[in-house]
Protein backbone atom coordinates (compact mmCIF):
# COMPACT_ATOMS: atom_id res chain seq x y z
CA UNK A 1 0.00 0.00 0.00
CA UNK A 2 2.74 2.45 0.96
CA UNK A 3 5.04 3.89 -1.64
CA UNK A 4 8.35 2.24 -2.15
CA UNK A 5 11.29 4.54 -1.68
CA UNK A 6 12.45 5.52 -5.16
CA UNK A 7 15.86 4.25 -6.13
CA UNK A 8 18.51 6.77 -7.03
CA UNK A 9 20.07 6.38 -10.44
CA UNK A 10 22.96 8.21 -12.00
CA UNK A 11 22.14 11.78 -12.93
CA UNK A 12 19.69 12.23 -10.09
CA UNK A 13 20.10 15.19 -7.83
CA UNK A 14 19.53 14.89 -4.12
CA UNK A 15 18.85 18.13 -2.34
CA UNK A 16 18.18 18.80 1.31
CA UNK A 17 15.27 21.13 1.78
CA UNK A 18 15.34 22.44 5.30
CA UNK A 19 15.59 22.06 8.25
CA UNK A 20 15.82 25.83 8.00
CA UNK A 21 13.97 26.53 4.83
CA UNK A 22 11.50 29.42 4.94
CA UNK A 23 8.79 27.43 3.18
CA UNK A 24 8.75 24.49 5.56
CA UNK A 25 7.41 26.64 8.43
CA UNK A 26 9.65 25.14 11.03
CA UNK A 27 12.37 22.58 11.25
CA UNK A 28 11.15 20.09 8.68
CA UNK A 29 13.93 18.45 6.74
CA UNK A 30 12.99 17.03 3.35
CA UNK A 31 15.43 14.97 1.32
CA UNK A 32 14.22 15.46 -2.23
CA UNK A 33 15.47 13.26 -5.06
CA UNK A 34 15.15 15.09 -8.33
CA UNK A 35 15.45 14.08 -11.93
CA UNK A 36 15.83 17.44 -13.59
CA UNK A 37 12.88 19.33 -12.16
CA UNK A 38 10.73 16.27 -11.60
CA UNK A 39 10.45 14.87 -8.11
CA UNK A 40 11.34 11.20 -7.82
CA UNK A 41 11.15 10.90 -4.08
CA UNK A 42 10.50 13.03 -1.02
CA UNK A 43 11.64 11.78 2.33
CA UNK A 44 10.87 13.78 5.47
CA UNK A 45 13.50 13.54 8.20
CA UNK A 46 12.01 14.23 11.58
CA UNK A 47 13.32 14.77 15.07
CA UNK A 48 14.69 18.30 15.00
CA UNK A 49 12.13 19.55 17.50
CA UNK A 50 11.39 16.35 19.35
CA UNK A 51 10.84 17.15 23.02
CA UNK A 52 9.42 13.77 24.11
CA UNK A 53 6.18 15.35 25.25
CA UNK A 54 4.51 11.95 25.66
CA UNK A 55 7.24 10.79 28.03
CA UNK A 56 7.22 14.10 29.90
CA UNK A 57 3.50 13.76 30.50
CA UNK A 58 4.06 10.45 32.31
CA UNK A 59 5.80 12.26 35.15
CA UNK A 60 3.21 15.03 35.44
CA UNK A 61 -0.13 14.89 37.22
CA UNK A 62 -3.44 15.08 35.40
CA UNK A 63 -3.69 18.80 36.08
CA UNK A 64 -0.13 19.54 35.08
CA UNK A 65 0.21 17.66 31.81
CA UNK A 66 -2.37 19.73 29.97
CA UNK A 67 -0.14 22.80 29.64
CA UNK A 68 2.51 20.78 27.76
CA UNK A 69 0.08 19.96 24.97
CA UNK A 70 -0.16 23.65 24.07
CA UNK A 71 3.38 23.22 22.78
CA UNK A 72 2.42 20.51 20.29
CA UNK A 73 0.17 22.19 17.78
CA UNK A 74 0.73 25.69 19.03
CA UNK A 75 -1.72 27.18 16.52
CA UNK A 76 -4.64 25.26 17.96
CA UNK A 77 -3.43 25.20 21.55
CA UNK A 78 -6.94 25.50 22.96
CA UNK A 79 -8.18 22.46 21.10
CA UNK A 80 -5.20 20.37 22.21
CA UNK A 81 -5.87 21.31 25.82
CA UNK A 82 -9.55 20.63 25.27
CA UNK A 83 -8.95 17.09 24.03
CA UNK A 84 -6.72 16.32 27.03
CA UNK A 85 -9.18 17.80 29.51
CA UNK A 86 -11.97 15.75 27.91
CA UNK A 87 -9.96 12.56 28.28
CA UNK A 88 -9.32 13.21 31.98
CA UNK A 89 -13.01 14.05 32.46
CA UNK A 90 -13.95 10.80 30.80
CA UNK A 91 -11.80 8.93 33.30
CA UNK A 92 -13.21 10.85 36.25
CA UNK A 93 -16.76 10.68 34.84
CA UNK A 94 -17.01 14.38 35.45
CA UNK A 95 -19.90 16.46 34.18
CA UNK A 96 -18.79 19.79 32.71
CA UNK A 97 -21.15 22.71 33.50
CA UNK A 98 -23.05 24.05 30.45
CA UNK A 99 -21.38 27.45 30.70
CA UNK A 100 -17.93 25.87 30.55
CA UNK A 101 -18.98 23.80 27.53
CA UNK A 102 -20.08 26.90 25.65
CA UNK A 103 -16.92 28.78 26.61
CA UNK A 104 -14.81 25.87 25.41
CA UNK A 105 -16.57 25.68 22.05
CA UNK A 106 -16.30 29.45 21.59
CA UNK A 107 -12.58 29.37 22.30
CA UNK A 108 -12.08 26.37 20.01
CA UNK A 109 -13.76 28.09 17.11
CA UNK A 110 -11.85 31.33 17.66
CA UNK A 111 -8.66 29.29 17.66
CA UNK A 112 -9.70 27.55 14.47
CA UNK A 113 -10.25 30.88 12.73
CA UNK A 114 -6.91 32.22 14.00
CA UNK A 115 -5.13 29.10 12.81
CA UNK A 116 -6.72 29.19 9.36
CA UNK A 117 -5.95 32.90 9.08
CA UNK A 118 -2.29 32.27 9.74
CA UNK A 119 -2.27 29.36 7.31
CA UNK A 120 -3.91 31.51 4.65
CA UNK A 121 -1.26 34.22 4.97
CA UNK A 122 1.64 31.79 5.11
CA UNK A 123 0.23 29.83 2.18
CA UNK A 124 0.13 32.95 0.02
CA UNK A 125 3.64 33.82 1.16
CA UNK A 126 4.86 30.41 0.03
CA UNK A 127 3.62 31.28 -3.42
CA UNK A 128 5.43 34.60 -3.40
CA UNK A 129 2.63 36.96 -2.39
CA UNK A 130 3.71 38.95 0.63
CA UNK A 131 0.76 41.30 1.20
CA UNK A 132 -1.89 38.70 2.21
CA UNK A 133 0.26 37.71 5.18
CA UNK A 134 -0.32 41.08 6.81
CA UNK A 135 -4.00 41.11 5.97
CA UNK A 136 -4.40 37.74 7.65
CA UNK A 137 -2.49 38.87 10.70
CA UNK A 138 -4.69 41.92 11.09
CA UNK A 139 -7.72 39.77 11.84
CA UNK A 140 -5.70 37.22 13.77
CA UNK A 141 -4.36 39.97 15.99
CA UNK A 142 -7.82 40.85 17.24
CA UNK A 143 -8.44 37.18 18.15
CA UNK A 144 -5.13 37.17 20.01
CA UNK A 145 -6.21 40.26 21.92
CA UNK A 146 -9.44 38.51 22.94
CA UNK A 147 -7.43 35.52 24.12
CA UNK A 148 -5.00 37.72 26.00
CA UNK A 149 -7.81 39.40 27.89
CA UNK A 150 -9.66 36.25 28.89
CA UNK A 151 -6.93 33.60 29.14
CA UNK A 152 -3.92 35.74 29.95
CA UNK A 153 -1.75 34.60 27.06
CA UNK A 154 -1.75 34.92 23.31
CA UNK A 155 -0.50 31.55 22.14
CA UNK A 156 -0.03 28.95 24.87
CA UNK A 157 -3.08 29.69 26.95
CA UNK A 158 -3.51 26.69 29.28
CA UNK A 159 -7.13 27.77 29.73
CA UNK A 160 -8.82 24.36 29.84
CA UNK A 161 -8.64 22.49 33.12
CA UNK A 162 -10.29 19.17 33.98
CA UNK A 163 -13.88 20.07 34.79
CA UNK A 164 -14.17 23.35 32.96
CA UNK A 165 -12.07 26.40 32.24
CA UNK A 166 -9.58 28.24 34.42
CA UNK A 167 -11.17 31.69 34.57
CA UNK A 168 -14.62 32.97 33.83
CA UNK A 169 -15.03 35.00 30.65
CA UNK A 170 -13.75 38.54 30.83
CA UNK A 171 -16.57 41.14 31.03
CA UNK A 172 -15.39 42.59 27.72
CA UNK A 173 -15.40 39.23 25.95
CA UNK A 174 -18.80 39.42 24.26
CA UNK A 175 -18.29 42.97 23.06
CA UNK A 176 -14.86 42.23 21.67
CA UNK A 177 -15.97 39.07 19.90
CA UNK A 178 -18.83 41.00 18.29
CA UNK A 179 -16.34 43.65 17.19
CA UNK A 180 -14.20 40.91 15.70
CA UNK A 181 -17.16 39.39 13.84
CA UNK A 182 -17.94 42.79 12.39
CA UNK A 183 -14.33 43.33 11.38
CA UNK A 184 -14.09 39.89 9.82
CA UNK A 185 -17.24 40.33 7.78
CA UNK A 186 -16.14 43.70 6.48
CA UNK A 187 -12.78 42.32 5.40
CA UNK A 188 -13.52 38.78 4.22
CA UNK A 189 -14.17 39.86 0.64
CA UNK A 190 -10.56 41.02 0.43
CA UNK A 191 -9.42 37.43 0.76
CA UNK A 192 -11.22 36.42 -2.40
CA UNK A 193 -10.18 39.57 -4.22
CA UNK A 194 -6.52 39.22 -3.41
CA UNK A 195 -5.90 35.50 -3.49
CA UNK A 196 -8.78 33.19 -4.39
CA UNK A 197 -9.70 34.87 -7.64
CA UNK A 198 -6.14 35.57 -8.69
CA UNK A 199 -5.26 33.83 -11.95
CA UNK A 200 -1.65 33.11 -10.98
CA UNK A 201 -2.78 31.57 -7.72
CA UNK A 202 -5.43 29.42 -9.39
CA UNK A 203 -3.06 28.13 -12.03
CA UNK A 204 -0.55 27.14 -9.40
CA UNK A 205 -3.15 25.38 -7.23
CA UNK A 206 -5.55 23.67 -9.59
CA UNK A 207 -4.60 20.16 -10.61
CA UNK A 208 -1.54 20.18 -8.36
CA UNK A 209 -0.94 17.93 -5.38
CA UNK A 210 -3.62 15.37 -6.11
CA UNK A 211 -4.71 13.23 -3.17
CA UNK A 212 -7.36 10.70 -4.08
CA UNK A 213 -10.04 9.81 -1.55
CA UNK A 214 -8.65 6.26 -1.26
CA UNK A 215 -5.17 7.57 -0.52
CA UNK A 216 -6.49 10.04 2.02
CA UNK A 217 -8.22 7.23 3.90
CA UNK A 218 -5.39 4.71 3.68
CA UNK A 219 -2.74 7.19 4.83
CA UNK A 220 -4.92 8.31 7.72
CA UNK A 221 -5.38 11.91 6.62
CA UNK A 222 -7.93 13.91 8.57
CA UNK A 223 -9.15 17.46 8.70
CA UNK A 224 -9.18 19.76 5.70
CA UNK A 225 -6.67 17.54 3.85
CA UNK A 226 -9.11 14.64 3.74
CA UNK A 227 -12.17 16.84 3.32
CA UNK A 228 -10.57 18.39 0.24
CA UNK A 229 -10.70 14.91 -1.26
CA UNK A 230 -14.35 14.45 -0.36
CA UNK A 231 -13.79 12.24 2.69
CA UNK A 232 -16.26 13.11 5.42
CA UNK A 233 -14.25 12.98 8.64
CA UNK A 234 -15.23 15.92 10.84
CA UNK A 235 -15.09 14.74 14.45
CA UNK A 236 -17.47 17.54 15.40
CA UNK A 237 -20.13 15.97 13.18
CA UNK A 238 -19.45 12.25 13.52
CA UNK A 239 -18.54 12.03 17.21
CA UNK A 240 -19.92 15.28 18.63
CA UNK A 241 -18.40 16.42 21.89
CA UNK A 242 -19.53 19.21 24.23
CA UNK A 243 -22.45 21.02 22.55
CA UNK A 244 -21.53 20.51 18.91
CA UNK A 245 -24.57 18.27 18.30
CA UNK A 246 -26.90 21.17 19.16
CA UNK A 247 -25.26 23.63 16.76
CA UNK A 248 -26.11 24.36 13.17
CA UNK A 249 -23.08 24.08 10.94
CA UNK A 250 -22.03 22.26 7.80
CA UNK A 251 -19.15 19.94 7.26
CA UNK A 252 -17.26 21.44 4.34
CA UNK A 253 -16.51 18.94 1.61
CA UNK A 254 -14.77 19.60 -1.69
CA UNK A 255 -14.28 17.00 -4.37
CA UNK A 256 -11.43 18.61 -6.27
CA UNK A 257 -8.75 16.46 -4.55
CA UNK A 258 -6.14 19.08 -5.48
CA UNK A 259 -4.45 21.93 -3.62
CA UNK A 260 -7.20 24.35 -4.55
CA UNK A 261 -9.87 22.11 -3.01
CA UNK A 262 -7.96 22.01 0.28
CA UNK A 263 -7.59 25.79 0.10
CA UNK A 264 -11.32 26.24 -0.40
CA UNK A 265 -12.15 23.87 2.46
CA UNK A 266 -10.22 26.03 4.91
CA UNK A 267 -11.57 29.32 3.61
CA UNK A 268 -15.14 28.04 3.78
CA UNK A 269 -14.51 26.49 7.19
CA UNK A 270 -13.68 29.90 8.60
CA UNK A 271 -17.19 31.06 7.68
CA UNK A 272 -18.69 28.03 9.42
CA UNK A 273 -16.71 28.86 12.57
CA UNK A 274 -17.99 32.43 12.36
CA UNK A 275 -21.55 31.11 12.19
CA UNK A 276 -20.96 28.86 15.23
CA UNK A 277 -19.65 31.83 17.21
CA UNK A 278 -22.66 33.90 16.15
CA UNK A 279 -25.02 31.21 17.42
CA UNK A 280 -23.33 31.04 20.80
CA UNK A 281 -22.13 34.53 21.62
CA UNK A 282 -25.52 35.80 22.82
CA UNK A 283 -26.54 32.50 24.39
CA UNK A 284 -23.86 31.83 26.96
CA UNK A 285 -25.71 30.18 29.86
CA UNK A 286 -25.17 31.44 33.39
CA UNK A 287 -23.66 29.20 36.01
CA UNK A 288 -20.36 27.74 37.07
CA UNK A 289 -17.41 27.83 34.74
CA UNK A 290 -15.70 24.95 36.51
CA UNK A 291 -16.99 21.76 38.06
CA UNK A 292 -15.98 20.97 41.61
CA UNK A 293 -13.01 18.62 41.56
CA UNK A 294 -10.79 17.11 44.20
CA UNK A 295 -7.43 18.72 44.85
CA UNK A 296 -5.61 15.58 43.69
CA UNK A 297 -7.02 13.90 40.61
CA UNK A 298 -6.77 10.12 40.39
CA UNK A 299 -8.03 8.29 37.34
CA UNK A 300 -9.35 4.77 37.88
CA UNK A 301 -7.38 1.90 36.41
CA UNK A 302 -8.13 1.58 32.73
CA UNK A 303 -7.70 3.08 29.29
CA UNK A 304 -9.36 6.28 28.11
CA UNK A 305 -9.50 7.81 24.67
CA UNK A 306 -10.98 11.07 23.51
CA UNK A 307 -10.66 13.00 20.31
CA UNK A 308 -11.27 16.50 19.08
CA UNK A 309 -11.18 18.26 15.75
CA UNK A 310 -8.25 20.66 15.69
CA UNK A 311 -7.63 23.07 12.85
CA UNK A 312 -5.53 20.36 11.18
CA UNK A 313 -7.61 17.28 11.78
CA UNK A 314 -8.34 14.70 14.39
CA UNK A 315 -6.32 14.83 17.59
CA UNK A 316 -6.63 11.70 19.71
CA UNK A 317 -5.54 11.49 23.34
CA UNK A 318 -5.06 8.02 24.78
CA UNK A 319 -4.37 7.64 28.48
CA UNK A 320 -3.50 4.39 30.21
CA UNK A 321 -3.99 4.72 33.93
CA UNK A 322 -2.75 2.43 36.67
CA UNK A 323 -4.87 4.22 39.24
CA UNK A 324 -2.24 6.71 40.39
CA UNK A 325 -1.96 10.46 40.19
CA UNK A 326 0.14 10.36 37.01
CA UNK A 327 -0.68 8.58 33.77
CA UNK A 328 1.09 5.29 33.07
CA UNK A 329 1.26 6.00 29.35
CA UNK A 330 0.02 8.80 27.13
CA UNK A 331 -0.23 8.64 23.38
CA UNK A 332 -1.23 11.54 21.15
CA UNK A 333 -2.54 10.82 17.70
CA UNK A 334 -1.55 14.06 16.06
CA UNK A 335 -3.12 15.12 12.77
CA UNK A 336 0.08 16.62 11.37
CA UNK A 337 2.00 13.36 11.40
CA UNK A 338 -0.58 11.50 9.32
CA UNK A 339 -1.01 14.41 6.96
CA UNK A 340 2.76 14.58 6.39
CA UNK A 341 2.96 10.88 5.54
CA UNK A 342 1.08 11.44 2.29
CA UNK A 343 3.63 14.01 1.07
CA UNK A 344 5.70 11.52 -0.94
CA UNK A 345 2.65 10.03 -2.62
CA UNK A 346 1.31 13.49 -3.43
CA UNK A 347 4.49 15.14 -4.67
CA UNK A 348 6.01 12.23 -6.62
CA UNK A 349 6.05 12.90 -10.33
CA UNK A 350 5.36 16.59 -9.86
CA UNK A 351 7.66 19.56 -10.21
CA UNK A 352 9.81 20.97 -7.44
CA UNK A 353 8.04 24.32 -7.64
CA UNK A 354 4.73 22.65 -6.95
CA UNK A 355 6.11 20.86 -3.92
CA UNK A 356 6.06 24.10 -1.94
CA UNK A 357 2.50 24.91 -2.97
CA UNK A 358 1.25 21.39 -2.29
CA UNK A 359 3.04 21.18 1.04
CA UNK A 360 1.59 24.53 2.05
CA UNK A 361 -1.93 23.19 1.66
CA UNK A 362 -1.17 20.32 4.06
CA UNK A 363 -0.86 22.99 6.77
CA UNK A 364 1.98 21.30 8.60
CA UNK A 365 2.96 22.41 12.08
CA UNK A 366 6.27 20.73 12.83
CA UNK A 367 6.10 20.63 16.67
CA UNK A 368 2.83 18.75 16.22
CA UNK A 369 4.57 16.15 14.04
CA UNK A 370 7.62 15.66 16.24
CA UNK A 371 6.06 16.24 19.65
Amino acid at each position, binding site marked *: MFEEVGTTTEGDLIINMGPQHPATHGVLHLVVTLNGETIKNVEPHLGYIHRSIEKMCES*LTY*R*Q*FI*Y*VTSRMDYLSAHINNHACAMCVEKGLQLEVPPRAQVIRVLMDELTRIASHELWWGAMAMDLGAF*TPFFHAF*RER*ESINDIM*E*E*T*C*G*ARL*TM*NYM*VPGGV*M*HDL*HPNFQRRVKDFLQLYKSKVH*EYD*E*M*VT*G*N*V*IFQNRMKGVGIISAEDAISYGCTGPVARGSGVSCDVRKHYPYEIYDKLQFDEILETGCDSFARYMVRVREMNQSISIIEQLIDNIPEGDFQAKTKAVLKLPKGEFYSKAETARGELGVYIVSEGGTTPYRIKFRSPGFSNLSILNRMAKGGKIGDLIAAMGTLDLVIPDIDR
Partner: protein
Amino acid sequence: MFLKKYIQDIWGAVKSLATGMKRTGYYFTHHKEIITQQYPDNRDTLVLPERFKGEVVMIHDENNEHACTGCTACELACPNATIKIITKFDVDAETGKKKKAIDTFVYHLELCTMCNLCVEACPTGAIKMAQTFEHSVFDRSQLTKTLNKPGSKIRAGVE
Protein backbone atom coordinates in the same frame (compact mmCIF):
# COMPACT_ATOMS: atom_id res chain seq x y z
CA MET B 1 -13.47 28.90 -31.09
CA PHE B 2 -9.95 28.38 -29.79
CA LEU B 3 -9.13 32.01 -30.33
CA LYS B 4 -12.25 33.11 -28.46
CA LYS B 5 -11.31 31.04 -25.42
CA TYR B 6 -7.74 32.31 -25.62
CA ILE B 7 -8.87 35.92 -25.54
CA GLN B 8 -11.38 35.17 -22.78
CA ASP B 9 -8.64 33.63 -20.68
CA ILE B 10 -6.36 36.61 -21.11
CA TRP B 11 -9.21 39.00 -20.30
CA GLY B 12 -10.10 37.02 -17.18
CA ALA B 13 -6.48 36.99 -16.07
CA VAL B 14 -6.07 40.75 -16.51
CA LYS B 15 -9.34 41.33 -14.69
CA SER B 16 -8.37 39.17 -11.70
CA LEU B 17 -4.99 40.85 -11.42
CA ALA B 18 -6.64 44.26 -11.59
CA THR B 19 -9.02 43.28 -8.79
CA GLY B 20 -6.10 42.38 -6.57
CA MET B 21 -4.17 45.49 -7.49
CA LYS B 22 -7.25 47.59 -6.76
CA ARG B 23 -7.25 46.30 -3.20
CA THR B 24 -3.53 47.03 -2.88
CA GLY B 25 -4.09 50.49 -4.31
CA TYR B 26 -6.91 51.08 -1.84
CA TYR B 27 -4.59 50.54 1.11
CA PHE B 28 -1.87 52.52 -0.61
CA THR B 29 -4.14 55.57 -0.66
CA HIS B 30 -5.92 54.97 2.68
CA HIS B 31 -3.09 55.20 5.16
CA LYS B 32 -5.35 55.48 8.18
CA GLU B 33 -6.76 51.98 7.70
CA ILE B 34 -3.33 50.40 7.86
CA ILE B 35 -2.72 49.00 11.30
CA THR B 36 0.90 48.90 12.34
CA GLN B 37 1.63 48.38 15.98
CA GLN B 38 4.91 49.62 17.35
CA TYR B 39 6.83 47.88 20.06
CA PRO B 40 5.30 49.05 23.36
CA ASP B 41 7.92 51.60 24.37
CA ASN B 42 5.24 53.64 26.13
CA ARG B 43 5.78 51.97 29.51
CA ASP B 44 3.96 54.64 31.53
CA THR B 45 0.73 54.60 29.59
CA LEU B 46 0.74 50.95 28.54
CA VAL B 47 -2.14 48.97 30.01
CA LEU B 48 -1.95 45.20 29.76
CA PRO B 49 -4.97 43.01 30.58
CA GLU B 50 -5.09 42.21 34.28
CA ARG B 51 -4.99 38.48 33.54
CA PHE B 52 -1.83 38.72 31.43
CA LYS B 53 0.66 36.17 32.66
CA GLY B 54 4.07 37.80 32.90
CA GLU B 55 5.71 36.44 36.03
CA VAL B 56 4.71 35.27 39.48
CA VAL B 57 4.88 37.87 42.25
CA MET B 58 3.86 37.80 45.88
CA ILE B 59 1.28 40.29 47.05
CA HIS B 60 2.51 42.54 49.86
CA ASP B 61 0.35 45.13 51.56
CA GLU B 62 1.49 48.53 52.86
CA ASN B 63 2.68 47.02 56.18
CA ASN B 64 5.05 44.72 54.26
CA GLU B 65 2.88 41.72 55.10
CA HIS B 66 1.99 38.83 52.81
CA ALA B 67 -0.46 35.94 53.00
CA CYS B 68 1.90 33.02 52.35
CA THR B 69 1.73 30.31 55.00
CA GLY B 70 4.39 28.13 53.44
CA CYS B 71 1.98 25.26 52.71
CA THR B 72 3.86 24.38 49.47
CA ALA B 73 0.64 23.88 47.49
CA CYS B 74 2.12 25.98 44.68
CA GLU B 75 5.35 24.02 44.79
CA LEU B 76 3.42 20.78 44.32
CA ALA B 77 1.21 22.25 41.60
CA CYS B 78 4.13 23.48 39.50
CA PRO B 79 5.01 21.17 36.61
CA ASN B 80 8.59 22.44 36.23
CA ALA B 81 9.88 22.79 39.80
CA THR B 82 9.86 26.55 39.35
CA ILE B 83 9.01 27.28 42.96
CA LYS B 84 11.00 26.25 46.03
CA ILE B 85 9.81 27.27 49.46
CA ILE B 86 12.26 27.24 52.35
CA THR B 87 10.47 27.34 55.68
CA LYS B 88 11.59 28.23 59.17
CA PHE B 89 9.99 28.19 62.60
CA ASP B 90 9.06 31.49 64.18
CA VAL B 91 8.69 31.65 67.92
CA ASP B 92 5.69 33.60 69.02
CA ALA B 93 6.74 36.32 71.46
CA GLU B 94 3.66 36.09 73.68
CA THR B 95 2.85 32.39 73.88
CA GLY B 96 6.28 31.00 73.15
CA LYS B 97 4.81 28.54 70.62
CA LYS B 98 6.69 27.63 67.47
CA LYS B 99 4.95 28.53 64.23
CA LYS B 100 5.87 27.53 60.68
CA ALA B 101 6.61 30.46 58.35
CA ILE B 102 8.40 31.02 55.09
CA ASP B 103 12.04 31.95 55.10
CA THR B 104 12.52 32.42 51.36
CA PHE B 105 10.12 31.90 48.47
CA VAL B 106 12.50 31.06 45.62
CA TYR B 107 11.10 31.51 42.13
CA HIS B 108 13.01 30.41 39.02
CA LEU B 109 11.73 32.62 36.23
CA GLU B 110 13.91 30.81 33.70
CA LEU B 111 11.94 27.59 34.29
CA CYS B 112 8.48 29.15 34.43
CA THR B 113 6.03 28.52 31.59
CA MET B 114 3.36 30.90 32.91
CA CYS B 115 0.74 28.16 33.20
CA ASN B 116 -0.97 29.84 36.17
CA LEU B 117 -1.39 26.55 38.06
CA CYS B 118 0.42 27.84 41.17
CA VAL B 119 -1.87 30.86 41.42
CA GLU B 120 -4.89 28.56 41.10
CA ALA B 121 -3.53 26.21 43.75
CA CYS B 122 -2.77 28.84 46.40
CA PRO B 123 -5.38 28.55 49.19
CA THR B 124 -4.71 32.02 50.60
CA GLY B 125 -4.27 34.03 47.41
CA ALA B 126 -0.73 35.02 48.33
CA ILE B 127 0.70 35.03 44.79
CA LYS B 128 -0.49 36.46 41.51
CA MET B 129 0.65 36.97 37.95
CA ALA B 130 2.29 40.33 37.19
CA GLN B 131 1.94 42.14 33.87
CA THR B 132 5.62 42.37 33.01
CA PHE B 133 6.96 41.25 29.67
CA GLU B 134 10.65 42.07 29.38
CA HIS B 135 12.65 39.44 31.18
CA SER B 136 16.02 39.65 29.42
CA VAL B 137 19.00 39.86 31.74
CA PHE B 138 22.75 39.54 31.23
CA ASP B 139 23.24 36.68 33.64
CA ARG B 140 21.10 33.61 34.25
CA SER B 141 21.40 33.86 38.00
CA GLN B 142 19.45 37.11 37.94
CA LEU B 143 16.38 35.15 36.92
CA THR B 144 16.27 33.30 40.23
CA LYS B 145 14.21 35.57 42.41
CA THR B 146 13.14 35.73 46.01
CA LEU B 147 9.51 36.73 46.06
CA ASN B 148 9.01 37.65 49.70
CA LYS B 149 10.40 41.08 50.43
CA PRO B 150 13.12 41.43 53.08
CA GLY B 151 11.67 41.89 56.53
CA SER B 152 8.17 40.89 55.45
CA LYS B 153 6.04 38.68 57.63
CA ILE B 154 2.76 36.85 57.39
CA ARG B 155 -0.40 38.88 57.83
CA ALA B 156 -2.17 38.25 61.12
CA GLY B 157 -5.18 36.00 60.82
CA VAL B 158 -4.06 34.11 57.74
CA GLU B 159 -3.90 30.39 58.48
